[in-house]
């Protein structure tokens, strides 16, 4: 069952198209929403949160419309991208108020506030005014308010912005833990390797259109116009190369470094199957065999260049 459904959804701002006839579903687990600047990620998230109205088409979350619908909205936690704070409040007051505004109260609220502040590492700073926070602290307190009312779905717009590497690692662990507990997460980020470390389910968007969705590996395999690159690190690349050049599936070979051979092929599975046999026959010592371009960054680059 999908959490978010978009049906022929379009959104335009005057002459500028934010989303263009998008039909897709976001399922359970963590889904990474990636795309270049101006692709439509924030527009999609705004539509999912009921902040924007579709110009055409429909969007439902948990099977229900989202615009001005508190029953659905209380099941969602939203972390906006930029600064969004009231003046003269401390972190704890900020989280507590939004917890109350979500319907929590009493001891349950107090416990929840304490827990989310601790889980985001903001306990030492919670009673200070937000205006004195660094960028990373602001991001973490925003995440705290996202989690305080124990939502079923988290919509996180650039949650890693401003966080230092330690904090990012901490946040990624938090998201994984939440996903294991059954919370669904839709997050957007420019930090592609961190999205990749969190999930293989991606939704790639460019110029208002979905250019790829689903499992990252599956998406990669669908890119027929881009041969797969296999990187082999070994002592005698030319020796292996001489054997591989005869294979029909091999489209090209490149010696990238003294100990690295790059094989380009449209049929990586068959090449992998034959490669191990050849290596054994030749008795070549191999240190690494890996896909050189199945990363999110590589796929992202292929798809956005193609759609440009």
């Amino acid at each position: 069952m999908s959490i978010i459904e978009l049906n022929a959804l379009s959104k335009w701002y005057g002459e500028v198209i934010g989303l263009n006839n998008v039909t897709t579903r976001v399922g359970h687990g963590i889904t990474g929403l990636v795309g270049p600047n101006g692709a439509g990620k924030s527009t999609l998230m705004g539509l999912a949160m009921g902040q924007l109205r579709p110009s055409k088409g429909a969007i439902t979350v948990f099977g229900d419309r989202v615009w001005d619908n508190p029953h659905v909205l209380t099941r969602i936690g939203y972390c906006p991208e930029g600064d969004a704070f009231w003046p003269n409040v401390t972190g704890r007051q900020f989280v507590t108020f939004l917890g109350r505004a979500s319907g929590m109260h009493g001891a349950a609220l107090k416990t929840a506030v304490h827990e989310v502040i601790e889980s985001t590492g903001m306990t030492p700073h919670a009673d200070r005014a937000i205006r004195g926070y660094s960028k990373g602290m602001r991001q973490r307190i925003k995440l705290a308010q996202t989690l305080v009312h124990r939502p079923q779905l988290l919509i996180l717009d650039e949650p890693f912005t401003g966080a230092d590497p330690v904090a990012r690692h901490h946040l990624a662990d938090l998201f994984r833990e939440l996903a294991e507990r059954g919370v669904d997460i839709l997050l957007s980020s420019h930090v592609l390797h961190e999205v990749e470390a969190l999930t293989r389910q991606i939704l790639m968007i460019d110029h208002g259109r979905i250019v790829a969705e689903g499992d990252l590996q599956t998406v990669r395999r669908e890119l027929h116009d881009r041969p797969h690159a296999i990187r082999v690190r070994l002592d005698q690349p030319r020796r292996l190369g001489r054997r591989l050049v005869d294979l029909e599936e091999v489209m090209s070979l490149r010696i990238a470094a003294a100990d690295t051979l790059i094989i380009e092929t449209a049929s990586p599975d068959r090449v992998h199957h034959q490669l191990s046999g050849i290596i054994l026959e030749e008795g070549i010592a191999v240190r690494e065999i890996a896909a050189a371009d199945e990363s999110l960054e590589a796929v992202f680059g292929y798809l956005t260049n193609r759609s440009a």
Partner: protein
Amino acid sequence: MRPIAALFTFTVRQMLFSRKLWMTLLLLAAPSALIVTIRSVAPPVEDAGELWDRYHGSVQFLLVMVIIPLVCMVYGVGLIGSEVEGHTLAHLITRRMRRATVLLVKFAATALVLVVLSELALAALYACALAGYDVSSLTGAAPAHAHWSPGRDLLGYMATIPAGVVGFLAVFTLIGLLTAQPLALSVFYLIAMEVVMGNVPTGAQAYTLLHAQRVAMVYAIPELSDLFHHAEISAGLHDRLFPEGATGLPQLLGVVLAALVLSIVLVTVRELMPTKVARE
């Protein structure tokens, strides 16, 4: 109810702990400061009529006509606008409250604080203008002033000023939602419609919120009618503007309801996003 109560108390708290409050207090204290200055310079008043003019003149031409509408403009235009600009509206409309509820709760909280502050300003002005005077021992210039009861007038003002505060706040809240740059429209409305049209002695006066408030005040304090009886205004026009028995409340309520209903429609239908997308 709890989210509503939380938003209500949060809004009140934000108002009371903001720097804007200092400007509001300064403005509301200005008539009292002026009266104190006048009292320190002028000779002691012996005529009840003169004291009456001084007190009611300050209330009407400073507090009611200028300061309260100005304060309501600053708060009303920013009721939702400040949340939109600060990007905090997203937090409020993605909680357990409808957009209309958010608007009404913020409106109620703001109105409550402004009403309380206005009443305090009124009480301060009363104290500054009349403290130390025994009205019964002063001679009256007109029969009405000989039976003047300042306490009753104060109660009359305290009963009617909240209606004006709520009315102006509702109108400026609507203006704040109508356009992305509401200040120009608000300034135009305040100066052209209320201050100018509300004081020019023509029938058009009757269409202003200021006039509706005056009608209510004349109902509560009948002697106030003398204050609004200009030499240029004919008796017939005066009677039309201040009909016998008119309370002004239907007009005030009508304005408040219309403004709030329109505001609810706008806040429910419009996206209220802070940024415009850059055109490529």
